[in-house]
């Protein structure tokens, strides 16, 4: 058991990192640990927990902005937002069921550090599109800030983007400020039955590029869905608008040749929570879960190659922008095979797998050498001694 420091203030974080910097000690950075098994295993001399740095520090609903200390539980943030009819529009995923950690135990710092957005990603952007400001401690133990608390801000480099999704390898967040948005008044989901992936992706693309203004677009094969091969298209917003857009979607885009049913807001919320949290692959211990990102129109062919050349099962999210793939492991389908099946411009992340697999394989898509060299220089500009989460992103 490595030494654990539970920081309760920004000063404590700075002190801990300054001391680690001075002694060349590697630090594993953690919130509540819900996503620690995501990424490559970290070998650290000590662990720094931010759970003691908790609490919402600013919330102005009319200005669509909230600030919270990094260790603030996500449930606390979502509850405060819900009380004001607002939400995190990027729809944070809870992957605890995939990762074998405790459900409902995320911190806002961890959400920002992993940039994990849900089904609304394809229209509302990722976590990185909603982060406005960050206070953090870099690998030298220095407290710095970037961004601000206003939406419109171009003052200096946008280091928020760089820090979001950096898995604690550039700096330890102490406080994050983010944009929040009104939660939709209501929602409906149109389910298309007996539809193959290719037709589904084409129709979802048309819907995303139309006045139907859908905010979720997923496809499940019969093996993963009770109702056979199904596509799900979510429409959110104001009551009259949702109704009108559903009508438009069904009349103009889908037509009468495809069997379509509509599910209401309550049932829909449960459905999209399942898609968001990749529930269909939960509990498959010993299996690997991959997230593949491609151009949506490349998704059906990739799905075909995966079914021909692996023993995996997969479903589509984001209108085709993402495929979630479950594969037996170890060994049957190493990273090399999965990545060799990707179309040009696609990339694959091994989100969940036993530790030995994550140690043996490239969890994140390897970068071309010049880009990797530049990223290493950027990393060094924050963490020159590579003491923050060493190895996690490599």
């Amino acid at each position, binding site marked *: 058991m490595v030494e654990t420091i539970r920081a309760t203030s920004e000063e404590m974080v700075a002190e801990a990192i300054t001391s680690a910097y001075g002694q060349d000690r590697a630090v594993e950075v953690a919130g509540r640990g819900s996503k620690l098994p995501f990424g490559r295993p970290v070998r650290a001399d000590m662990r720094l927990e931010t759970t003691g740095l908790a609490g919402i520090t600013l919330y102005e*609903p009319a*200005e669509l*902005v909230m600030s919270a200390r990094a260790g603030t539980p996500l449930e606390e943030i979502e509850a405060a937002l819900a009380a004001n009819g607002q939400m995190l529009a990027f729809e944070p995923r809870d992957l605890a069921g995939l990762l074998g950690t405790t459900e409902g135990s995320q911190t806002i710092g961890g959400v920002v550090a992993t940039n994990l957005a849900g089904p609304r*990603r394809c229209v509302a*952007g*990722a976590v*990185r*599109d909603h982060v406005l400001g960050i206070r953090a401690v870099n690998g030298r133990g*220095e*407290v*710095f*800030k*970037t961004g*601000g*608390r*206003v939406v*419109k*801000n*171009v*003052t*200096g*480099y*946008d280091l928020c*983007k760089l820090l*979001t*999704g*950096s898995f604690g390898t*550039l700096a330890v967040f102490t406080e994050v400020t983010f944009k929040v*948005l*009104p939660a939709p008044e209501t929602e409906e989901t149109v389910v298309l039955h007996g539809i193959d992936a290719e037709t589904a992706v*084409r129709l979802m*693309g048309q819907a*995303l*590029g139309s*006045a139907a203004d859908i905010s979720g677009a997923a496809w499940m094969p019969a093996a993963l869905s009770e109702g056979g091969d199904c596509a799900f298209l979510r429409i959110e917003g104001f009551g*009259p*608008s949702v*109704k*009108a857009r559903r009508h*438009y979607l069904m009349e103009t885009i889908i037509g009468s040749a495809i069997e379509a049913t509509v599910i209401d807001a309550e049932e829909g919320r449960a459905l999209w929570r399942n898609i968001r949290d990749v529930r269909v692959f939960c509990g498959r211990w010993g299996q690997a879960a991959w997230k593949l*990102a491609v*151009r*949506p*129109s*490349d998704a059906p062919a990739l799905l075909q190659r995966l079914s021909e050349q692996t023993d995996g099962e997969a479903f589509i999210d984001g209108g085709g*922008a993402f495929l979630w793939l479950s594969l037996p492991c170890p060994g049957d389908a190493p990273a090399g095979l999965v990545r060799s099946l990707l179309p*040009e*411009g*696609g*990339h694959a992340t091994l989100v969940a797998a036993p530790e030995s697999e994550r140690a043996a394989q490239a969890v*994140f*898509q390897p970068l*071309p050498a*010049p*880009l*990797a060299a530049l*990223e290493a220089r950027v990393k060094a*500009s*924050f963490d020159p001694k590579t003491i923050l989460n060493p190895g996690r*992103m490599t």
Partner: protein
Amino acid sequence: MRMPTPDPLALGRYQQLIGGLRAIVPGEGVIVDERELAAYESDGLTAYRQLPMVVVLPDTTEQVAAILRLCRDLSVKVVPRGGGTSLSGGALPVADGIVLAMSRFNRVLDVDYQNRTARVQPGVTNLGITRAVEGRGFYYAPDPSSQIACTIGGNVAENSGGVHCLKYGMTTNNVLGVVLVTIDGEILHLGGGALDAPGYDLLGLIVGSEGLLGVVTEVTVRILPKPETARAVLVGFPTNAAAADAVATIIGSGIIPAGMEMMDRPAIHAAEDFIGAGYPRDAEALLIIELDGPEVEVDHLIERVVAIVEQRQASSIKVSTSEEQRLAFWAGRKAAFPAVGRISPDYYCMDGTIPRARLPEVLDGISAFSRKYDLKVANVFHAGDGNLHPLILYDANQPGQLEAAEAFGADILKMCVKVGGVLTGEHGVGVEKRDLMNDQFDEVDLDQQRRVKDAFDPSGLFNPGKMFPLLSSCAEQGRMHISGGALRFPNIPRF
């Protein structure tokens, strides 16, 4: 404007530089004639002028890479330039450097309607992208006011906004990928086809980096289906505070308008005198609230907005019932800058952003500065996102007025920072606000940014003298002002 002292060694390599550039870009792509160079001596911030050593106009990414390697080897500085419409001096040349003008990169390469993306060269204008896709019912959302002239490459450099960014985001939220050429001539693909590229989000860092990290030679943007309909509401208020309260109530009730603009009494009167848009002259503040989307939704929200402003002391309410009327509501706002230019020989435009709740006190503060400096001011304001554009009226021919306007502007920006806001919402830091950066960031913050800069450009050859305070800077501070007669793009509406 103080710029870094020219490097005599770089200046001494002039012949080598010209020879090298001509070997890379044949024909007329290398400009050395002083009269021709003059076209590049300034950008939208015309108060500052500087001839570069040479201007080069490459045609290909490979040429850009070769030019950057040459400049690195000769220690010659590089100022990238798009449409040259920057209001913060982002494309101001340096005496010991080249201007790398991207105007020949003017093609739309590929539009992918199924995946809703467009791949374009950086010299394509912002409006050019929309023009290329509107036939199929799509558009590119960020719409800086200079959109007929500004280029997407410049938008990427400045993370440009516009009046619709409350709902649709800024450039950074609408760019999916770029091709970036580094100072070592390496060609990197950041993002592109698939979302959420692996590794650090260098794409997010490049957007808004003001040409200090590399040169972008290709941009992939997200295109959106054009909203079915748009309508606007024009509302007069007896006080600024009532207008600010209405804005807060609308957003707090869950409505995100496509655009929400505010003007104060001097701005209303200037616009009304200029084009007679039908604005209420008796109002202290005016709001233009635009809703877009499906017709049913727009009608529904208009009703709700009208109900809200009625309860917030609105003194007049007009709802557009036709596209002509909607455009007429906007005409006064879009003409606000030239309207102010008409009533004053010169004006100085600021670009701070504030937390919206602080608006009444900030406007009071601006009025107090106005009395202190004895200069008039008109305020136009992207009310939805808190981005203020105070226009300080002055006459450069009156001794002391220019200096007073500059001090007035700096006071406004410092006040924006003090109430929790920032120095610039959409115009960029450039040379203009470089020396105010210490008011928003401490040295640790700035050092972290400088180290990121060093990771890309260790010799500091890209766009020197911009964004960061000069180390030796003393009381002299960055200024931006627009002279009535010298506005570089007089026909572009500025808002």
